[in-house]
């Protein structure tokens, strides 16, 4: 334990003093602030005259404003923080020939990778919490609405989801830094994985869906709907392989209490719609949590599994020879 703590502190010092991290954090904080103030100001105009709208505060994070919302932004560029924090975690030590020195210290070997991962997660948590706090503060100033307990809980869950999601990419980046000797290769590999999982899985999912369940051009409405629903199901299952989709669905559901399902298309008869539209209440927090739970669990699982693989590969590696 002593070993872990020592390396953890050293890693934190490195992170805080690195220009690279400062740049990315500054970029994210800046974009976050710009988005928040833009959304806040447009909401200020829209909400003029409305007595007491519900869950306004969360709109700061989900409303798209002029460009895109904060959640979309983090979903897209959040992985970059993880990658930047982790892509050279091990192989930089290796090329700097400090890894063998580190290993020769009286500490366990797993303390190195554990501490590096933990330090990265801590950095991610600090960045996320501070951005959310900045936006909240700006939001309170701009729209003059104080968040309720329910909204704060939702935000907390959102922060946890975001930390998990970025930590997954941190784990993936550390894994590449363990596998590849060159920092450039691991950085490129991480970026490739990010681009593939974030953008191409969705595209591949729709190709797959068209191949498995083609949408036939029939006049029969029922048949067409059925084909459409099946197509959508296949596409959805395929896209759930991407952590970006998992994260996006989970955050949009937890931050929007009126959203009752993370699915995009729902088969709904006219009577059901009528019956559902009778009471348009926001979901209670617990129900939203229960809906989001599978996504949360999946994110936790892939993050842990990713780190587990990384740990295993690192522990089995020969270090002294380099």
């Amino acid at each position: 334990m002593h070993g872990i703590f020592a390396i953890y502190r050293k890693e934190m010092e490195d992170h805080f003093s690195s220009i690279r991290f400062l740049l990315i954090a500054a970029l994210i904080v800046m974009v976050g602030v710009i988005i928040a103030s833009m959304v806040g100001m447009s909401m200020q105009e829209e909400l003029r005259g409305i007595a007491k709208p519900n869950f306004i505060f969360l709109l700061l994070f989900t409303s798209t404003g002029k460009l895109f919302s904060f959640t979309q932004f983090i979903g897209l560029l959040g992985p970059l923080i993880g990658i930047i924090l982790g892509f050279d975690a091990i192989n930089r030590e290796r090329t700097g020939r400090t890894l063998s020195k580190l290993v020769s210290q009286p500490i366990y070997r797993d303390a190195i990778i554990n501490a590096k991962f933990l330090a990265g997660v801590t950095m991610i948590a600090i960045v996320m919490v501070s951005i959310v706090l900045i936006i909240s503060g700006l939001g309170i100033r701009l729209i003059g609405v104080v968040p309720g307990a329910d909204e704060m809980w939702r935000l907390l869950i959102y922060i946890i989801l975001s930390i998990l999601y970025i930590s997954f990419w941190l784990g993936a980046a550390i894994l590449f830094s363990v596998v590849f000797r060159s920092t450039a290769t691991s950085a490129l590999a991480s970026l490739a994985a990010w681009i593939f999982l974030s953008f191409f899985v969705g595209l591949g999912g729709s190709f797959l869906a068209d191949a498995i369940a083609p949408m036939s051009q029939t006049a029969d409405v029922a048949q067409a709907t059925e084909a459409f629903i099946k197509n959508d199901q296949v596409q959805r299952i395929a896209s759930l392989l991407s952590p970006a989709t998992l994260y996006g669905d989970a955050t949009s559901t937890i931050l929007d209490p009126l959203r009752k399902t993370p699915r995009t298309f729902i088969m709904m008869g006219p009577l059901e719609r009528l019956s559902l539209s009778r009471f348009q209440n926001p979901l209670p927090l617990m129900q939203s949590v229960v809906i989001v739970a599978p996504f949360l669990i999946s994110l936790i699982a892939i993050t842990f599994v990713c780190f587990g693989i990384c740990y295993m590969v690192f522990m089995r590696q020969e270090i002294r020879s380099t």
Partner: protein
Amino acid sequence: MGRVSYLRRLFTVAIIIFVLLGVAPALIMAQETDKKDNRPERGIALYTDYSGVAVAKGETVQMDLTLENKGRTDENVDVRITSVAKDWKATLKGARYRVTGMYVPNGKAKTLALTLEPAKGIGPGKYAFQFEAKTADGKLTANHTLSVDVQERTVGADNIQITAAYPVLRGQTDSKFEFSLEVMNKGDMERTFNLSAVGPEKWEINFKPAYEQKQISSIRVKEGQNQTVAVEVTPNQNANSGEYPVLVRISSGESKAEVKLTVNLTGTYRLDAGTPNGILSLEAFGGKPVTFSLFVRNNGSAVNRNISFSSFKPENWETTFKPEKIESLAPGAMKQVEVTVTPGRQSLVGDYSVGLMVNGEKADKTVEMRVTVKASSAWGWIGIGIILLVIAGLSFLFIKMGRR
């Protein structure tokens, strides 16, 4: 030949024309002399159509007084009432004026409106009125006497007649009853009738003209004609079933008429339904049935039969009622029905509205339930299992590979 016949015809026509020309003036002359002979030089007459009338007590006599010029000269005639019975007021009017004299051309007759108005307390008896007409030069006079026999008023039930087309109406307590009455004025003048009605306590009784929504309390009917009046009866909401009489009275001055209407109440059909604790919301999981009890109560005052149940629900949902039907429910009685609601397997998390309809024979009631579909937490347990598994795997790795 043709020429001879033409001459003959011409001759005949000529003879006819000659005869007509000679005879016609002679005939006209004969007529004129005939008329002239019969009329005197001057002569006037004064009379009313009836020289004696009998009226009821308090009634005003209205009549025409006729002045006739029987002579060949036009006359200016002074008219006056020479004697008026005590406590009576007599006026002579022509157009808008009281008349004291008038111009009567020869051979013509002119009329004046005579009004004889008795004072209030005048008793029965004979009253005489005298009128005198005098030419302007005072040479000719004419007199006329009118006697009025005032009689004690006979209570004239006969001169108002009410007929009800449907004197007995039957219906639910909460409905309105509209009787149609025909009021006939059999008297000899236009009259205003006052309408009044006596019904059971706390009942509302209104008079309306036929096909109009006004409430009236009197009606004007011309002599010899009839008018339709609608009587709207609204029973007291708490009235028991049974027969209730409503007495409608129509009066004008001293004469009156009555008609008895009957409202036959059959009671009300009213159903009430709800949950025993008054909570109209329930929680359910998708695909899992939820059972709760619904009570059905007969709030009306008549027996409700054949009460069945139905529901308004989303597709793929199921509702069952046990029992499915209630044969009969006495007034005030209450029965319990077990309702099972099964949300569809694919239903979303959130609040659904489910309407439960209780359909009696003549009454129904809808209870709207808010069904909150909750997300099944089964997945949560599976997820926790997965996480435990992952953590166990990691710990295994730590223990096996760490501490090198």
